[in-house]
């Protein structure tokens, strides 16, 4: 087992630390709150000669992702970081990265989208690009942000899919916590040298990349991308297993917190999962069998696995930190309901849209969700969608 060092780090510092240990060939980035620190700290590593990385300061996120694509296509291990409007500006190029199957790793700090302008946490930005063909991994805390970054490189390069690791803006990005970091050499060993498949700078085996695909080939390439996303589920699990063997911490597609005997459960992503666990523990002390399903991997969505984990639970609620603005539920609830439906599980699944723009989610808010689930168990029906913590 690897030696560990216990340190106090913010989520951003933890992600930058992982990037230093990974020592990518190229980082191209543009600063944006609250992700600025990640690349700012990393740039200081470059300036101090602690990494061998070529740092490309660009003039926008659109350019950042474009430069990442150039670097990754050439064969370089490539990383970047962004948030909110930055991710939105990258959106066009995110699709190019996945279409070209480039294993770029992006540290994404979840933040609301304008307007109104707001710098605080919600998941609108990440959810906006949920169909961009990127693997999306959510982190509950700074430790997971670090662990997920280390795993993401391996996942991305094995699956040949770009991968974003997210943390919650300010709550995790700027909150200092106790985390365990590994020795540089152990991270280096774990990540390994970049496996070069086909790359542009390989003069032995020249390739053309990104040729025009019309009616005759585009469909086949998109079908390949879909298949790669399906296959990446097992890759993510394999990497998690290797990670556990080497570093001791277990990861899956999601975490089942006290679900085994639960009669009510909340499905949630990110930092709120921790708070929900505290609430569940409090309810269990009163004899109420509460549990939490903390989704780690939103893309690929572990449909059958989520349905299996929830099938015996009497009442399930979803908490969405973004809205589809479709007049119906948020993106996570849509996925969970589709998963249950496809597994022939008929349940009322109320959705709670919460925490938009960094709105505080209090213990009482989560308690009220569990209370609603209690009502459902007692045969009462609940609203399909509730905006939790909004002023009427």
């Amino acid at each position, binding site marked *: 087992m690897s030696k560990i060092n216990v340190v106090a780090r913010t989520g951003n510092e933890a992600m930058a630390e992982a990037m230093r240990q990974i020592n990518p060939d190229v980082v191209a980035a543009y600063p944006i709150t609250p992700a600025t620190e990640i690349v700012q700290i990393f740039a200081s590593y470059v300036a101090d000669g602690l990494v061998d990385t070529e740092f490309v300061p660009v003039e926008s996120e659109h350019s950042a992702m474009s430069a990442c694509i150039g670097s990754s296509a050439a064969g370089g291990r490539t990383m970047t970081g962004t948030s909110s409007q930055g991710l939105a500006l990258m959106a066009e190029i995110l699709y190019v990265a996945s279409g*070209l*199957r480039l294993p770029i790793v992006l540290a994404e700090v979840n933040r609301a989208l304008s307007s109104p302008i707001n710098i605080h946490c919600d998941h609108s930005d990440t959810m906006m690009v949920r169909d961009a063909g990127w693997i999306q991994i959510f982190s509950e805390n700074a430790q997971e942000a670090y662990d997920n970054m280390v795993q993401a490189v391996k996942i991305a390069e094995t699956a040949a899919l770009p991968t974003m690791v997210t943390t919650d803006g300010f709550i995790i990005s700027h909150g200092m916590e106790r985390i365990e970091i590994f020795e540089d050499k152990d991270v280096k060993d774990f990540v390994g040298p970049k496996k070069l498949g*086909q790359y542009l700078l390989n003069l032995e*085996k*020249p*390739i053309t*990349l*990104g040729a025009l695909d019309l009616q*005759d080939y585009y*469909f086949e390439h998109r079908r390949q991308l879909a298949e790669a996303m399906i296959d990446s589920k097992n890759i993510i699990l394999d990497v998690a297993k290797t990670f556990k063997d080497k570093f001791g911490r277990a990861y899956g597609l999601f975490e089942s917190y006290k679900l085994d005997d639960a009669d009510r459960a909340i499905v949630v992503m990110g930092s709120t999962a921790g708070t929900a666990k505290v609430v569940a523990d409090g309810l269990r002390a009163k004899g109420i069998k509460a549990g939490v399903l903390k989704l780690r991997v939103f893309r690929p969505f572990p449909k059958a696995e989520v349905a299996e984990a929830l099938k015996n639970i009497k009442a399930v609620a979803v908490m969405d930190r973004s809205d589809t603005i479709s007049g119906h539920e948020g993106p996570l609830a849509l996925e969970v309901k589709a998963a249950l439906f496809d597994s022939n599980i008929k349940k009322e699944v109320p959705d709670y849209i919460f925490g938009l723009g960094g709105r505080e989610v209090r213990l009482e808010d989560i308690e009220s969700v569990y209370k609603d689930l209690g009502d459902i168990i007692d045969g009462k029906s609940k609203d399909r969608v509730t905006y939790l913590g909004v002023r009427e």
Partner: protein
Amino acid sequence: MAEKIQKQGWKSLPKGDVIEGGGTAREFRTGDWRSERPVHIPEKCIHCLTCWIYCPDSAIVTKNGKFVAFDYKYCKGCGICAHECPVKGKAIKMVSEKEAKKNEKICQK
């Protein structure tokens, strides 16, 4: 006519919009859709190779510093060579394909 190739399905197609191998443009017969072709007039040609410099498709064949022929497999018939030819009265003239192919069979294969 370009050879008809069997298009691959998603399972066998190289992944990620990659075309394997170099110089694949060679297989792309851009001469197929020409409407006019350049015709060489040897008695006027001074072998300055201005046409060779300007041809965007490298369709001017030369040997020992002299003009030999047009490569009609790739020549798109853009006419730049004829336009740039510095010889008074021009050593290259553009002729319609219809005219040029008048004596050929409709389908050569």
